[in-house]
């Protein structure tokens, strides 16, 4: 029977010892692997949503809030900005800006945000149309895949929005029905969870709201009057369409008195001197605020990282304890089995056979421990993904395989072999005469 098979028989012979070693090892591996899976997907989510956006311009306030609101759509806006104030940045001839995409937020449908923007927005996330078309006329919307999945909206359906970012029937904009004209293919980025329309739609919805509250404080107001207002405001932007393409920045610039929430900026060259200086210039010299997403997100991850660092430290501690448990169990086994090891030598087994036998036992314990731990981490990631999805609409998954996991396998086996090394060496070196004399 070769050393490999005997090693398997030996570890199976003591099932309780085996169980203890494996539970400890699997716990360490499982925790570390879970963190790898979670962090990787979290970083992935943040990074796919970065969408090569270099700078976000918006109202003054917290830069992190500006980023979270306008790029990740998980916080409220810092406020609105007047197009007139943002004029130079929307100018297509700006020397260092390659593209500037305006965003107008403020409404939602069933907690999915409605974003007033232009086609540049879909280009940022490289989103393709899956069904229908992109929005064209006011009140036409194109929706992300996840919106379609969860609200069951289909092309041709209409819905009314509600004000703010949480679904509230009392705050419904009753008189403007949005119409779905297209559904985007899934991208894995935040755009899957958004409802897109043109900027002027948002203005129209809100202007209508303001005017109806001005004309009558009561909720019950004249229906016909409201519709009249609608017509007024739809005509206004349509007048401009004749000169500039619909939704283009040039068209926006013809409404300097209107508001938007933010502008997503991509530089022509990230490393140019002017680009590096731009955030400071904007923050010091204009009424706007500029925030760099990469910088703010790194700051955020660093802050959150303190928590994961704590878990990591615990995982390493368990890893250390499990290595120790393999070491102790092999060392004890080696002492308990000293006669059978001596016997193997008497029957013609070489020192190398004994050495390999014990090393293989450590290797096998680590391999089984790693396998159990890896399965555990994937299953728990998948269970957690269910909660994350319902709470944050973040699509995590346990059924992914990262190359870091191979790295963890290599480290696990190394630990197994390393903890077996001392017992293996001392067993191989042991003087068999001494053992047999006392037998």
């Amino acid at each position, binding site marked *: *029977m*070769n050393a490999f098979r*005997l090693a398997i*028989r*030996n570890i*199976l*012979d003591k099932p309780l010892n085996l169980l203890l070693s494996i539970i400890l090892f699997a716990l360490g591996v499982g925790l570390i692997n879970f963190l790898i899976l979670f962090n990787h997907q979290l970083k992935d989510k943040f990074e796919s949503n970065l969408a090569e956006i270099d700078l976000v311009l918006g109202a003054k306030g917290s830069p992190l809030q500006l980023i979270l609101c306008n790029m990740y759509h998980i916080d409220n806006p810092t406020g609105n900005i007047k197009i007139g104030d943002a004029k130079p940045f929307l100018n297509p001839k700006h020397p260092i800006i390659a593209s500037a995409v305006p965003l107008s937020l403020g409404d939602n449908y069933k907690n999915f945000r409605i974003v007033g923007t232009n086609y540049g927005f879909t280009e940022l996330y490289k989103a393709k149309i899956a069904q229908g078309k992109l929005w064209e006329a006011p009140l036409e919307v194109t929706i992300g895949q996840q919106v379609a999945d969860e609200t069951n909206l289909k092309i041709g359906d209409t819905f009314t929005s509600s004000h703010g970012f949480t679904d509230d029937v009392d705050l419904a904009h009753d008189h403007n029905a949005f119409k779905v004209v297209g559904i985007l293919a899934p991208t894995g980025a935040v755009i899957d969870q958004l409802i897109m329309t043109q900027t002027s739609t948002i203005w129209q919805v809100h202007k209508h709201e303001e005017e109806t509250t001005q004309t009558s404080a009561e909720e019950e107001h004249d229906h016909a009057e409201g519709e009249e207002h609608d017509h007024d405001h739809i005509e206004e932007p349509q007048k401009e369409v004749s000169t500039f393409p619909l939704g283009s920045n040039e068209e926006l610039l013809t409404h300097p008195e209107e508001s938007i929430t933010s502008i997503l900026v991509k530089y022509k060259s990230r490393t140019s001197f002017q680009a590096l200086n731009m955030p400071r210039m904007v923050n010091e010299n204009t009424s706007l605020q500029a925030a760099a997403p990469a910088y703010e997100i790194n700051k955020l991850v660093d802050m959150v990282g303190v928590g994961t660092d704590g878990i990591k430290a615990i995982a390493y501690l368990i890893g250390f304890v499990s290595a120790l448990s393999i070491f102790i169990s092999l060392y004890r086994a080696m002492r308990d*089995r000293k*006669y*059978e090891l*001596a*016997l*193997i*030598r*008497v*029957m*013609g*087994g*070489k*020192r*190398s*056979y004994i050495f390999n036998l014990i090393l293989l036992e450590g290797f096998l314990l680590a391999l089984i421990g790693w396998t159990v731990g890896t399965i555990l981490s994937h299953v728990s990631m998948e269970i957690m993904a269910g909660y994350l999805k319902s709470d944050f609409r973040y699509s995590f998954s346990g059924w992914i395989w990262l190359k870091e996991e191979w790295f963890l396998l290599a480290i696990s086996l190394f630990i197994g072999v390393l903890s077996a090394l001392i017992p293996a060496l001392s067993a191989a070196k042991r003087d*068999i*005469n001494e053992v*047999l*004399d006392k*037998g």
Partner: protein
Amino acid sequence: MTIISFEDVTFSYQAGQSLQFPDVNIQKGNTTLVLGQSGVGKTTCLHLMAGLMKPKSGSIVINGSSIAQMTQSELDAFRGKNVGVIFQQNHFIGALNVLENIEMSQYLSGGKKDSVFCKELLKRLDISDKWNKKTTALSQGERQRVAIARSLAARPPIILADEPTSALDDTNTTEVFKLLKDQADFLGSTLVIVTHDNRLKDLVPHHINLNKS
């Protein structure tokens, strides 16, 4: 033909004591007793004959090979092929059953696994129904029989037994000796028994006395 010879063999323990062994000449096929009181170096003698340790000086030739010059791993391989040992205390590989323990001896000696032969040995020793039992489930007597079977499994030309009868009564002593002798004869192996048990003297014609006269 000489199968084991000692010439001017001395051995020294790590503690510093040294032992002088009488010259030994054991002929092939001659069952031989190595006699001596406790402490005269009987076990050391057995370990030297088995190639488990090397002498300080002198020459030991076993089955035509001088073992004093061998390296440790040559010695391991040589022992596996040439010598089967039965110890006073019978130890086994706990994770394996009776048959696997016996087959292990064949594997470690570098030979082919021969389950048929192993089962035949168990049958000759009258314990063939225990082949798939763990060794811990056996009685003392059965364990000794398994140890005998194991020492024979690799068909070694020499069988060494260390005090195989010291714990037995007279009837069993004779029986165990007969068992050992029969199996050794069956394989054509030379049986050497190291013992202080005088009851065996009448059963074995060839004696080597380690006692200082």
